[in-house]
């Protein structure tokens, strides 16, 4: 044992130092060229077609002459910003869905402030989401539209589809938690002991920084340290560096969450697992997943440590539809939006499934 040094030879360290210093100095030139405005996320052309306070409804400009007749309304999560679906031109699920001929709308929940402290899950589902659905229906003079719920937005979409099934032609859920009591998620486990009511009362708004921290601490060394050390290898490549910076922006651009919404989300969904028990009540009406009888496509990530696959796959046991399809992708939670595999295959999968049913 004592014959081998447990650390690198000094000469190797010197060589590494010289190489790294060279990379860093080259990278300095790239740094010098970049400006904050170069981090242009969510750049696919879109127009605002409806607004209620901080909530906006966007319509993406179609890229094909004849998009699918029934549009898709994307319902993203409140805990992060929607532009993860449109991070950059060559890594944009939105752009790829447009190219597949889909007509896309998206709800931007905005950045809640203290005046939104009392907003509830009901306000988001029966209020904002319902109004956005109405806006799309009116614009297209349609009785039904397609819904695509992403992550927590999938739960809002599920609740809405269960309450207003006549307005939803097809429902797609993507990396959506359904059974919150399955094993395998650190976040699920941690949340079980949280006193959300006290947090809501104490803070009013749950700070986005706190939520980011909760997500990042799942793997502290990888997410806090290593990624910055690995940065040295991409410093001299402007495109890669910009990609890193866009992702970095998204990770830390976490909106504050209304306290009352947070309390309900933690107590009713995570701790009470009420969605699958049929005990969620919104606007005086009970959410029964069995009422979802329209076609359902459930897309999940096989390596998702935030929303375990088993949590998403539970949906099949609770919905009332006879047209249920599952698609798994060999990626993690974030990979679902940006990995090469999903960038190639996800949009065609969604489009093909919708076209068969429209």
């Amino acid at each position, binding site marked *: *044992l*004592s014959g*081998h*040094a*447990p*650390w*690198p*030879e*000094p000469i*190797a*360290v*010197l060589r*590494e*130092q010289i190489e*790294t*210093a060279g990379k*860093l100095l080259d990278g*300095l*030139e790239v*740094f*010098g*060229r*970049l*400006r*904050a*405005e170069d*981090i242009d996320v969510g750049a696919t052309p879109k127009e605002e077609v409806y607004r209620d306070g901080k909530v906006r409804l966007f319509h993406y400009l179609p890229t094909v002459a004849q998009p699918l007749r029934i549009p898709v309304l994307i319902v993203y999560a409140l805990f992060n910003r929607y532009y993860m679906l449109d991070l950059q031109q060559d890594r944009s699920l939105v752009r790829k869905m447009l190219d597949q001929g889909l007509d896309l709308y998206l709800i931007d929940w905005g950045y809640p402030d*203290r*005046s*939104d402290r*009392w907003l509830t899950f009901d*306000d988001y589902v029966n*209020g904002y989401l*319902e*109004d956005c659905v*109405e806006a799309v229906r009116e614009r297209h003079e349609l009785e039904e539209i397609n819904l695509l719920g992403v992550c927590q937005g999938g739960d809002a979409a599920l609740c809405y589809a269960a309450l207003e099934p006549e307005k939803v032609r097809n429902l797609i859920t993507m990396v959506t938690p359904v059974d919150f009591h399955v094993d395998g998620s*650190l976040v699920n*486990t*941690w949340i*079980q*002991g*949280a*006193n959300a009511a*006290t*947090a809501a*009362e*104490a803070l009013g708004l749950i700070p986005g920084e706190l939520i980011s921290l909760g997500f990042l*601490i*799942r*793997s502290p*060394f*990888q997410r*806090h*340290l290593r990624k*910055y050390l690995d940065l040295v290898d991409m410093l001299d490549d402007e495109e890669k560096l910009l990609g890193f*910076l866009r992702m970095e*922006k998204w990770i830390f651009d976490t909106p504050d969450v209304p306290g009352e919404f947070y309390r309900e989300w933690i107590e009713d969904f995570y701790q009470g697992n009420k969605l699958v028990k049929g005990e969620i009540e919104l*606007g*005086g*009406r009970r959410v029964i997943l069995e009422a979802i009888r329209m076609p359902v496509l459930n897309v999940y990530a096989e390596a998702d440590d935030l929303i375990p696959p088993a949590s998403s796959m539970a949906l099949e046991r609770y919905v009332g539809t006879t047209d249920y399809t599952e698609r798994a992708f060999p990626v993690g939670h974030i990979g679902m939006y940006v990995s090469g595999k999903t960038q190639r295959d996800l949009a065609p999968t969604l489009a093909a499934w919708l076209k068969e049913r429209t």
Partner: protein
Amino acid sequence: MSQGPDPAELYHAMIDQWRRVVLAQPGFQSAAQGWTLSDLVERYLAAQSTTMRLVELSLDAWRELLPKVGTGEDWRTSITALAGRFREQLLSDAGTEGTASEAQLWPQYLAHLQRLGLPMLDAFREAPGRLQEAAFGEDPELTRLTNLFWDSYAQTFGRLLRSPGLGPGRETSEKLERGFDAWLEWSRASFRYQTIIADTWVRALERFLSELADRAARGESPATVRALTNLYMETAEAVFVEKFMSTEYIEAQAQAGNASMEYWRREREIVDGLMKISHVPTRTEVDEAHRQVHELRKELRALRRELRELRHAQRRAPAAGGTPHVPVSAGAEEEESD
């Protein structure tokens, strides 16, 4: 054993050199005006420094370990002993706070509250008439309250604080007591949490040293500093994630988080009291106003929805050739029943 410069020192020197070079560049200053870039550089350098400090600690430990290994002593036992000593040091340093009596903690609590009180107290200095008197007169209420606690603590070691308060300051006094209890609970929970984290750092170090020893025995030592730091991070991450899943950690995290929220809530009660006497709207009052606006908006939305459904029904009516059925929203039903 290789002789020569210490790899960790070399790498540290490189980081410092890079920092100096970067900060001296005129281009950097302009680039850094965008928060993302300057933040990124800082994060990169901080990550390097942090990781190297951890690796340095491990290498120091290894240096201490090596002579024992040379004597034929079982190196795993030596690593365990070394880790035990680190743990003892860490916990004894932290133990002072954890075992402090309430009498020692009370002044700390008051000092903690000062960060809230001072701006408000400064404002009182300029306030006219009775308010100024109340706050900074011959016998200012806040000072009296504070002295009451100090005196009573000195005389009774805190027991008097648990007895019911009397006089005009009774309510404020109770709020301060509740705040102290919450602060104490938060301190305890936080200490327990930090203890677990400190122990996990030691375990990570222990496992890293074992991994290094295993590799050295196989002649597979990391060839670069990068490989060494990566090995450290992978090893430490595994140890931390294991701990994160343990019942001990989950309970400690929940207790610390919940205790901090409870303290925050109690602290707001105290701040609200200070705001009221200075004619400033309290957070609670503002929240209450927001709640009323929220309820009104809900009613408005229900009415809008009802109107929309009515219009839809009217549009459909001529085609159906009959009187339309007008659906009534849940909100409207509630109003009618009220």
